[in-house]
């Protein structure tokens, strides 16, 4: 396993050595080293968002509506409680179609910190989801967030 991180954001995840991080000031971005037969490279993206005053349920509802408006063929498959790192989270499963016409499955964990929200978004071609799910769930359970004071 390899630890990928973004020190500026205080985020790290554990993934297999077949994953590589991409430089970003705004997020922790990791991509599978190999492209799937679908032509879509599975990705993991962790971001920190200001969420002052919002409960986790409020933030989750806003996120779902934003995704419903912006994603082509949006389909909310699941929305359940879960864990991101060591924090209680909401976990969404959404299917949509990207601009190239590829059917994608997006799994997103959302949790609240003291003054910010943390999300981990795992996206893959729908046909790859059965094999990608364990990678995404491993990344979610390993996620560490040193929240700024």
């Amino acid at each position: 396993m390899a630890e990928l991180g973004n020190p500026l954001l205080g985020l790290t995840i554990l993934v297999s050595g077949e994953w590589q991080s991409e430089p970003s000031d705004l997020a922790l971005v990791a991509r599978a080293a190999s492209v799937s037969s679908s032509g879509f490279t599975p990705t993991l993206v962790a971001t920190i968002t200001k969420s002052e005053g919002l409960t986790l349920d409020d933030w989750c509802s806003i996120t779902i509506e934003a995704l419903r408006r912006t994603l082509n063929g949006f389909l909310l498959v699941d929305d359940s409680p879960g864990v991101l790192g060591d924090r209680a989270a909401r976990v969404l499963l959404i299917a949509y179609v990207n601009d190239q016409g590829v059917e994608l499955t997006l799994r997103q964990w959302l949790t609240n910190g003291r003054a910010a929200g943390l999300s981990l978004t795992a996206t893959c071609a729908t046909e790859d989801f059965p094999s990608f799910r364990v990678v995404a769930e491993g990344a979610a359970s390993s996620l560490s967030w040193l929240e700024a004071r």
Partner: protein
Amino acid sequence: MSPAPVQTHNLRLDGRQLDAVMWSLGCPSGPPRDGLDPGVASELQAACSDLISRGVLREDGGPGVEFVELLGPLFAPWLIVQAAAFGPAGEEEHVVWVAPSAASAAGDLGDGRYDLISTTAAGVPAAVVRLLRLGPSAVLASGEVELPSRFLDELVTLNGVAGSALVKWLRPWPAVAESVSQGDWRLVHVSTQWAPGIFPRPEQAVARSSGLLALDTPTGLITFQPGSPALATASSATDLWELLIELTSPPAEIFESDR
């Protein structure tokens, strides 16, 4: 590049018209071309004549020019997916025909009519979720229960009385048992039938054709796996999504002859 079209020309048909379309196109899930009762054949022929006059079918029995994309997958589908739900609230049975690069679904409207819509081959799991109105479900305590191996067949055939038969197997999930006792449940049955002609050995199609059976209630989702014994397992909508992808993804054997 612009997004791939999800729908083109849609079509609303009653059951007889849908049978006539399948019969005319030689669809494997439709009435047989030969050996039909003369009365039934006459009714199908009359329905075909009506569909020809509407431009849905051509005189030679093929799809009308504006319906080639919608009806194309019914010609020689790789895969036929039957997606059914039944319980105290009624029954519905949808069908999806999947070709290598396109798919069409017949959505059961519940009043004897069907909506035919186009989708993509990779979009079949999403189409099944939409047709059956599946979605987020309550989370259950994990667990599984062993069932007699014949029980799953009985569940599918018992239909309306299956609820009382189910309750005694749901002890680990009292909220689900309560939902079933109150008649607030349905069984979801998705089955796949792969076309023998696409496999190097036709018998591989039978081995690959499979299905899933799930109990859907407001208080949680239970999936059933056949076997000796059969198993009832607490599941999530995400688990069901994964099963649907596995059921409808082209098996690797299909591509063996290309290697």
